[in-house]
C-alpha cells in the first residue's frame, strides 16, 4: 500500500480548521529534525526538550491566531524559532556552548569503516579526531553547512531556506569547505584512513 506524504500546507490548513490530529502529524513529521537541530546546539537532552516544547508552543500560538502564512517554508520557520529560543536561553544564562562534542555523541562521527581490524579501527578514531580538529579551522559558515548537511541530513534546499541564502551559495560553501579541509590535511601532514 502506498504511503502518501501529506504536505505541511495541508496539515496546517486542517489544523487551523480545527483538526487537532493534523498538529500531531506535523510534529511527528518534523520532530527528529527539529530536536536534532536543537540538541546539536545545546548538547543537553533536558534543555533540548524544553526548547522543543517552547518552539512548538510558539508554533501553536501562531497557527491558532492565523499569524503564520504558509509559503512552503514551515520547517525553516520552525528552525528559526528554535534558533532564537536557544540564543535567548544562552543570553540569559550568559554563556554560549563552546564544544559540540560530548562523550556520548560526536556531531562529526561520519567517517565510515567497515573493517573489523583493530588497527584500522584505531587509525579511524585518530582520523576522526583529526577531522574534528580540522573542522574548527573552517570559517563559521562552512562549519555550519557541514553540520546541517551531514549531521542533520537536510537537503540543500532546506539549508538554503534556513539560512536565507540561495542553493548555489550553499553548494559553494560546501565545496569550499571540502577543499579547505583537503588543504588543511596536507598542511598538517595528516594521514586519513578510508
Amino acid at each position: 500500500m502506498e504511503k502518501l506524504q501529506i504536505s505541511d500546507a495541508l496539515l496546517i490548513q486542517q489544523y487551523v480548521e480545527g483538526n487537532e490530529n493534523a498538529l500531531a502529524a506535523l510534529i511527528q513529521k518534523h520532530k527528529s529534525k527539529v530536536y536534532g537541530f536543537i540538541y546539536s546546539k545545546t548538547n543537553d537532552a533536558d534543555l533540548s526538550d524544553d526548547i522543543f516544547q517552547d518552539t512548538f508552543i510558539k508554533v501553536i500560538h501562531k497557527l491558532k491566531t492565523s499569524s503564520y502564512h504558509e509559503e512552503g517554508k514551515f520547517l525553516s520557520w520552525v528552525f528559526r524559532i528554535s534558533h532564537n529560543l536557544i540564543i535567548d536561553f544562552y543570553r540569559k544564562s550568559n554563556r554560549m556552548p563552546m564544544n559540540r562534542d560530548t562523550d556520548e555523541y560526536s556531531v562529526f562521527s561520519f567517517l565510515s569503516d567497515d573493517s573489523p581490524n583493530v588497527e584500522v579501527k584505531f587509525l579511524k578514531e585518530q582520523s576522526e579526531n583529526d577531522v574534528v580538529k580540522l573542522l574548527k579551522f573552517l570559517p563559521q559558515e562552512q562549519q555550519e553547512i557541514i553540520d546541517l548537511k551531514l549531521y542533520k541530513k537536510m537537503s540543500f534546499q532546506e539549508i538554503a531556506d534556513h539560512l536565507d541564502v540561495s542553493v548555489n551559495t550553499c553548494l559553494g560553501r560546501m565545496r569550499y569547505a571540502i577543499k579547505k579541509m583537503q588543504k588543511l590535511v596536507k598542511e598538517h601532514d595528516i594521514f586519513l584512513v578510508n
Partner: protein
Amino acid sequence: MANIYLKEKKVQTLEPKKSTIDFLLNYSKSIKCVKTKHLNVLVNLN
C-alpha cells in the same frame, strides 16, 4: 595524497520525550482562538 572520505554513518536518532509531545497536543486542545474586532486572542478552555 590524503583524501578526506566523508560517508554517512548510522547515528543515534535523537527525539524529544513522548511526554513533551503529549503535553503539546494537550496544550493545543486546551486553548482556543477568539477573534475580537482588532485582535486574535488565545483563551484557555480549562
